[in-house]
Structures are given as C-alpha cells and as structure tokens.
C-alpha cells in the first residue's frame, strides 16, 4: 500500500496555563489518523472537541504539545512557534470557518491574492481563476467588495481562493456552518463538483453527521475533549452522489445511526 499523503501521529494539545490557575486541561490527546492521496476525509465531533485546534495544528498556525504531523512522510516540528511553517509552503490549503476575505479587495482580487503573493499570476492561472469564478456563479460579482456579497457568495469566494492555487491537501473547518440549509446544500454540491474535477485530498471537519456522510469517502468520529478518534466509517455510497436525496439512500440511515451513537 502506498504511503499516506498526510499522517497525524499521537498528536496532543493543551493551551498554555494561566498564572495561578494550575495546568490547563488537554484539548487533544493521542490523536492519530492518516489520509490517502485523493481521499475526501470527513471528521465529525461535538462542539468544543478541538476540531479547529486540530486543523490549526495541521496547517501549522498553532503549535502542538506532543506528537507530529507528516506530509509525504516528512515530519514537521510543531512544538516551536518560531519553526512553524504555515500552510507548509503552500502545500496545505485551509478554508476556515470565517471567510477571511480581505475587505478592501474585490472578489476577484481576493481570489487572485494567493497567486499574487506566490508570484504565479500568469495568463494561465488567471484563466483558471475565471473558470472557478464562473463554476461557482461569482463571475458577475468579480468587482464587488466582500461586504456587498451574500454569506453564501463569500463562502464560495473563500473556497475558490484556496482551490485556485491548487494545494495538494485542503483542510476545511465547517466552511458551510453559518449558512441556511438551502445555500448549504448548494455549496456542498458545488464542492463535490469542484472536487470531482481535480480529486484533491480534503480533510473536512464538521459537527453535522449528514454532511460528513454526504461528502466523505471516510468519516472519523472525534470524542469529547481530550479529543481522540472514537470511530471510523467507510462511506460506501457511490459517487456521483445526489446531495439533496442522500438521506433517502438505503445505506444512509444505518451509517447515521452508527456515527451518532459515537458522537456524544
């Protein structure tokens, strides 16, 4: 079997304790899992389970208290804040919970921002950005500022801002959490369509079990803090999937029950 693309080994995290309060509790302890190239991995866990903390450590914007993360079998030191390499030299993309669009840039300028700072702004990459803008229906809004867009549009912009520079791994932290059900389903469909085009490796964190099943090849269940892996489920529902009808798929019910029993 080929080596996993991304491997989390025995990862632990506790935040620095405040003076006079004693040691702070472990948020994550002994967490291990791996992701294959081209796999869509979903991780479900209750709120406060350390899902965001986990992704922050993989993206290297936060330190780990123990354990390591390996990318293509190459380990990064995660205990020293000065040694962190956020985004692992553009190889790990991160779509955060908030869209984090730069408010003084128009939609298109925001989408082109990664290419610009990486010095990769060419006719070819611009064409790719245009393609993505059109694929998610933002073509008519390229000169709008973020505050002039709807929540769903901002999410789409932040999603394609990461897709545009094509990092081998993309982390997603409940990207559709704050949206209404209708927009959410639309965006899940968009995401699956875009993923089908490139088959990126995705680690998608959510608290919504149905979303985890609908999107993933495999779903991991996180326990309450201190978080570790409480269960693993292969999602055998064939692709392409019908997001809107996923709940009526014969395998959905049993999967949902099994996962829910583990999410406490």
């Amino acid at each position, binding site marked *: 079997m080929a080596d996993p693309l991304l491997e989390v080994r025995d990862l632990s995290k506790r935040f620095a304790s405040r003076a006079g309060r004693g040691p702070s509790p472990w948020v994550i302890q002994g967490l291990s899992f791996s992701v294959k190239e081209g796999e869509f991995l979903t991780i479900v866990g209750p709120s406060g389970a350390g899902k965001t903390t986990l992704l922050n450590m993989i993206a290297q914007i936060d330190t780990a208290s123990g354990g390591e993360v390996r990318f293509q079998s190459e380990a990064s030191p995660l205990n020293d804040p000065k040694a962190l390499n956020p985004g692992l030299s553009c190889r790990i993309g991160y779509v*955060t919970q*908030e869209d*984090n669009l730069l408010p003084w*840039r128009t939609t298109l300028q925001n989408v082109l921002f*990664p290419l610009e*700072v990486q010095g990769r702004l060419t006719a070819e990459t611009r064409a790719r950005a245009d393609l993505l803008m059109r694929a998610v229906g933002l073509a008519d809004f390229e000169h709008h500022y973020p*505050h002039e867009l709807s929540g769903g549009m901002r999410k789409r912009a932040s999603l394609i801002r*990461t897709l545009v*520079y094509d990092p081998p791994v993309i982390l997603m932290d409940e990207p559709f959490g704050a949206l209404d059900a209708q927009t959410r389903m639309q965006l899940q469909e968009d995401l699956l369509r875009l993923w089908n085009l490139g088959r990126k490796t995705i680690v998608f964190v959510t608290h919504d079990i149905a979303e985890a099943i609908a999107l993933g090849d495999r779903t991991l269940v996180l326990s309450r803090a201190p978080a570790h892996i409480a269960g693993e489920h292969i999602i055998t529902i064939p692709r392409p999937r019908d997001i809107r009808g996923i709940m009526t798929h014969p395998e959905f019910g049993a999967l949902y029950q099994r996962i829910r029993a583990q999410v406490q």
Partner: protein
Amino acid sequence: MTARDDVLDLPREGPLQWRRYGVTIGRAALLLLLIAIWKLGADAAGPMYVADPFKVLERIIADTQSGTLLRHVYVTLRISMIGFVIGCASGVALPFLLRRLPRLTDAVEPYIMASVGVPKYALVPLFILYFGIDDAPKLWLVGLLVFYPVFIAVFAGIRSVDRRLINMARIVGASEATIAREVIWNSLMPFFFAALKIALPRAVSAAIIGEFLVGNEGLGYLIEHSRQNVDTTGVFAGIVIATAIVLIINAVLVELDRRVSAWRPIAREMAL
C-alpha cells in the same frame, strides 16, 4: 394618475429637497451672521483690538497682488509639509519596526507613552539652542507634533489587525513584507486617517508658532510682525489665511479618505 395623487406625491419629495437646501442655506446664513458679529465687534472694540472684516479682505487682496502674501504662505506650507513628512514617516515606521520586536516594545512602550505628556512647544528654546535659527528648530517642532498622533494611531491600529487575516495570508504563502504592506497597512487605514485629521492642521499650527519665534518670513512672522507694528488688520489677515489653509487641507483629506476607504461599508451609508 389623478390630480389628487399628484398633490399627495408633492410633500413626499418636498421635505427631502428642502432639507438638503436648508442645510446649505443655513450654513450660508451662519457665515453671514459670523461676519456680522465680527463687524459689530470691530465697531465696538475699535480697530486697535478687532480689525474690520472688510479692511482685512482689502489687505488680503492687496498683499496677494503684491506677492508678499503668497511668499509667506509658501514659506509656512514648506515648513509644515517637510516637517509633516518627517514626523509622519517616523510615526508610521516605528510601530512597524516595534511589531517585529515584541520584547523591546514592552520595554519602551511606557517611556514612549510618558513622552506624549511633554509639552512640545516648551522644547522650542532647546531646539533653537541646539539647531540654530534656520529651518531646523521649526522642523523639529512640526515633526514632533505630527509624530505623536500618527505613532499612537498606527501603534493601536497594528494591534487591532484581525489575526485571522494574517494567518490566512501566511497560509497562502505571503511573506512578512507582503503581510505588512497588504494586510496590516490596509487594516490600519481608518486609524491612519483619523491621525492625519489631527496631525495635518497641527503641522500648520506648529510651523506658525515656530515662525513667531524664529525667522523673518512665513504666516507666523506676518502675524507677529504686524502685532509689533500695531497693525491689527495684518494680524487678522494672517489668521484668516492660516484658517483657510487648514480648511483646504481638511477638505483634501476628507476627499482622499473617501476614495481610499471606498470599500468600507460604513463610509457609504454615511454618504447618504
């Protein structure tokens, strides 16, 4: 549409139109009132204390035609602007440097904040002692008075930058220089403009005060020299011109702010 509807439509448009004209008319009326009070004051107090507004206008026109006024304006603006650029550049650069050195910042911050309390005008005699009586002491005064509001605003602005935007930029591969220029600089624009609104008029005031004390040109010299010659009209003419300069600078600044901050939702709603 019936005639009745037309009648009903009128008041809907009316008050809005009137309100808009009303503000302009009100402003003009207020200006006339102020000039009238000035004129009455001049008549009551006598030309020794309050110059007649029409004589002041005559003087401004005469001095403009002879070119002396423009020369004074040029000299004052030159000192204000050079001093402003020096003070503003250091007020921006220092917080950006300190950002990279958090421990040094913690060490020096209380001293910088304490030095805000030193009355800068009180330092002018020292500046004259150290730097002579040419432009240098005036530039020091203007530079210092501009430095503090800019430094404090930019310092606070840098601290208020959204960490999440910085993290996003790091993850997509932005260098520290790019982050400073793109994320931090743009984030602190509102702070920077708030500081400029204080610093630019201050620069002109400081230059004028410098000219009271040193040199034989500039609006400050014009005002002080006129006073020594018991020429109250000259004093008032200088004050009117100095005020006009500050008002013009403010108008330019407001327009610049409007353009730079076009992306800000608040600015647009306020424009209504």
